[in-house]
């Protein structure tokens, strides 16, 4: 089913009194329709309703970046995105980054190659943010990588490896 067809489905939409909302969205190429309480964040929808637990709940207040996903191709913190605002939109999570044959995205491979993690909890958010950082054109110097990755905190302090991984992957992504 396409997004347009889902949008026209008769049972979809906001309930008349607004106490429940039906969210239709495409996540990693797959269409979903989920009815939730409007308090639900996109992060909780992904983790609790779609079992996509790659995006992590760190602070749940938009301060740590562990929940970073792409919404219509732009990075956002999913903990501060009400799920209902993702309706009719496309979401990419860390689970959707590798190719269908299982080959890792160059950024995922670079994080392994450069030892850019220790405990790994912030890593899905780091990688989603890093991919966007390259796509935005903000990975052209170490200074700009640091500035534009500042919304992703790493308590293990793997920053040196993270910056090296982004520089490496940026070159490969530009060639691809």
């Amino acid at each position: 089913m396409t997004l347009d067809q889902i949008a026209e489905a008769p049972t979809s939409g906001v309930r008349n009194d607004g106490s429940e909302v039906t969210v239709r969205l495409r996540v990693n190429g797959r269409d979903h329709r989920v009815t939730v309480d409007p308090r639900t964040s996109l992060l909780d929808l992904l983790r609790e309703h779609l079992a996509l637990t790659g995006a992590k709940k760190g602070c749940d207040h938009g301060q740590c970046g562990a929940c970073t996903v792409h919404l219509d191709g732009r990075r956002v913190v999913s903990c501060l995105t009400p799920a209902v605002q993702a309706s009719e939109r496309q979401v990419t999570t860390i689970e959707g980054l590798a190719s269908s044959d299982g080959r890792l995205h160059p950024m995922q491979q670079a994080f392994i190659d450069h030892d850019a993690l220790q405990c790994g909890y912030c890593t899905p958010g780091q990688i989603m943010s890093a991919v966007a950082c390259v796509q935005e054109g903000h990975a052209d110097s170490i200074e700009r990588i640091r500035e534009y990755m500042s919304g992703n905190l790493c308590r293990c302090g793997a920053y040196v490896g993270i910056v090296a991984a982004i520089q490496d992957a940026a070159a490969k992504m530009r060639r691809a």
Partner: protein
Amino acid sequence: MQPFTYTRAETTADAVHAVVAGGPGTRFLAGGTTLYDLMKLNVERPSKVVDVTALDGLDEIDTGGAELVFGALARMSDVAAHPLIVAEYPALSESLWRAASQQLRNMATLGGNLLQRTRCAYFRGGEPFACNKRKPGSGCAAQEGINRGHALLGGSDACIAVYPGDFAIALVALDAQIEVLGPNGERTLRVEDLHREPGQTPEIETTLGHGELILRIRVPKSPLGRASTYHKIRDRESYAFALASAAVALDMEGDTVRAARVAIGGLATRPWRARMAEQSLIGKTLTPQIAREAGDLALQGAKPGRDNEFRIELGARTVADALMIARQRA
């Protein structure tokens, strides 16, 4: 989080009507980065939320006319990176990209950013801390508490919470206006007149009435734009709120200042235009000493608390450095 009902407005008139009809517990929702965050903390407890992000035509960035016109739903990241804004109005671009993180800037709208609420920990922290802004009449825990980050200018015995935004500081320096739609129609006001000092009613933060919706931000085009900067001093180099900041813009004739704009952020309860500092610069040759004297004037009247006296000198130096940075761009 308190339960709420959600509706999505199709037109600006519907949005205003829905918020007015819903009563005082009804709020507009745009990017959500402030409201939804504070709802999770139970500091904001709306019973109804009217989503305005689907409104048509309010995400425009129009630089073609005599004014820069930004729709209230334009995203911070898009305006920050707009080539003409980067080249001709660096203070605007810098005030946006030096705020928050790229993820938050992709979400947050300009209109919502202007209305961002304070980061005062006693406001956000909830019970048992007293906060007149959160619970009128309960007192202000910051007066005798940890007030390293609190306001030195514009405070009262009821509230010393800092206005945390950056973009509004640059807008105030550049004489920007906002267009607002409310139940009684449209009106225009200066950004400088949007935010209030707390006085004895810190819970009332702006001059907007219930149901008034910011539609657009208008910045007059000016030769002051190019020789401008937003200089922001933080505890860490990126992704932090300002300990002190300054938006300055200069019109130079050779080495002599023809006109100057100075506004400071991170130090006051509202965006703070420093007109005495501006006046002091006119006709002067801009040297580091003259710049520092202007910085001291910008901080005149500052009232320190227990932990924040260092930010008087920091603020004066921030203004002085900003003036010298802007000077390089003239």
